């Protein structure tokens, strides 16, 4: 029973990791941008939520209703005004620019919010749990995070496969010139992709901030998890990303069950094993690449 519990808790955390990875996967799929500032955008969203909560006295989920559109707009402007200019040439350019963004965001957050650890408070969600049997209880918070992850990934799947915009994402990812000949403004499509990616990031960031403490410097570690999830699940596959998140979550939970300091290590080991034996991931390629 102990192990079943461990696995379930790990899988639920995996939902959060999948959310971390979804935006990264979307930006890479559409534009081949590896966004090294991805983790810092997650942290930035959490701090934005703090600003909204302090300013309006609302709870974190209400704050998300403001943070999400702000991040959408920020993503659009960021892509249109900056990242678009890094595309089309050397692959190093977007890497360097997003790496620079990462440094800037971390330092700006340190300057504005200090290095103290913060947390978003939502006692109702954190404290409530549903008891299943004698020794098994599922917290409302992890369950909510997992359900949100499934809903978000499902929504992006629908967007990609059932809408004009999603079709344009896939077509542009395949062949920029031919997509433009069909009337696609690729600069706008890229901006929409980043806007949507950062909207997902804002959801991930707020849920992350409710779940655990954060400070301005922890972005890169979230980026690492996001990377691992994408690689484990298979590049370009969103359901693979969910599977990758669950696997990483379970690996960390099992590692932590042996020794609390092993959780991250166990995740890395599983990631390396997948890279070794299934380098294309578990569910490779449904769009892009």
């Amino acid at each position: 029973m102990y192990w079943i519990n461990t696995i379930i808790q790990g899988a639920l955390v995996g939902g959060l990791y999948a959310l971390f990875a979804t935006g990264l996967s979307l930006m890479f799929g559409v534009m081949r941008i590896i966004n090294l500032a991805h983790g810092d955008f997650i942290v930035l969203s959490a701090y934005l939520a703090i600003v909204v909560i302090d300013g309006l006295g609302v709870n974190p989920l209400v704050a998300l209703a403001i943070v999400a559109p702000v991040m959408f707009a920020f993503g659009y402007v960021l892509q249109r005004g900056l990242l678009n200019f890094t595309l089309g040439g050397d692959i190093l350019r977007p890497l360097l620019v997003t790496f620079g963004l990462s440094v800037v965001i971390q330092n700006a957050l340190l300057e504005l919010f200090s290095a103290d650890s913060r947390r978003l408070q939502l006692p109702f969600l954190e404290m409530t749990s549903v008891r299943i049997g004698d020794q098994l209880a599922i917290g409302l918070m992890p369950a909510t995070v997992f359900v949100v992850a499934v809903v978000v990934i499902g929504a992006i799947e629908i967007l990609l496969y059932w809408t004009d915009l999603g079709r344009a994402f896939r077509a542009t990812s395949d062949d920029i010139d031919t997509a433009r000949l069909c009337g696609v403004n690729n600069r706008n499509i890229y901006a929409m992709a980043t806007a949507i990616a950062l909207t997902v990031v804002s959801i991930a960031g707020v849920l992350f901030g409710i779940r655990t403490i954060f400070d301005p410097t922890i972005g890169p570690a979230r980026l690492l998890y996001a990377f691992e999830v994408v690689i484990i699940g298979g590049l370009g596959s969103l359901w693979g990303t969910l599977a990758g998140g669950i696997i990483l979550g379970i690996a960390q939970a099992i590692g932590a069950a042996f020794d609390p300091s092993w959780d991250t290590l166990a995740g890395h080991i599983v990631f390396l094993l997948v890279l070794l034996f299934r380098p294309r991931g578990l569910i490779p390629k449904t769009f892009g690449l």
Partner: protein
Amino acid sequence: MSLLQTEELVAGYGDFQALFGVSLAIERGETVAIIGANGAGKSTLLRTICGLLRSRRPTDVRFDGIPIGSLEPEQIVALGIAMVPEGRRPFPSLNVEDNLRMGAYCHRAGPWTLERAYALFPNLAERRFAMSPTLSGGQQQMLAIGRALMANPKLLLCDELSLGLAPIVIRDIYAAMPGIRAEGTTLLIVEQDIQRALRVADRVYCMQKGRVTLQGRPRELGRDEIKLAYFGV
């Protein structure tokens, strides 16, 4: 006013100049073929008209009287010029139907719909949910034409329709041309197969080394005249 007019069009790739003052005029409803050897600049000409390459001066290319030389491809297709690119270029991660829908991305009104495209190419209707890389070369060419038609263009540019296809397949594809012309669509066709070009076109331009060396109606052009314009010997 001609539908499409290029005037002393100069274009190229970076420092490499490929077109040296190409002037041509295409009237509404015409089918015009451009013939010429490899490297004559035929594809460069089409790529410049549809906006993938920039001409040196914006007024080099006029469509319906509007200078389009400085417009982006997505703006040009919205004005009514669609392109069937060389090598067909279907979107590999889209199925047949999504490829066709991409063609209608600019939402131009007109006669061409999914149903009409399938009626023109029944082969595609049978495979509407197949991923485009699984199609045969001929089916991919039909898909590329169908996709371009979905933009309801006034002017359809076709680059090397017969490239790499079996003669019987080429015949099937050219059999669709009268149906396209019947909608009033103007056609500009680049073709290596001279006989094919002379048969389908109202007028022919022959290009060599980035210049127009001969033009006229197929009936009025002599064999030797074409040979001279084509090879320059």
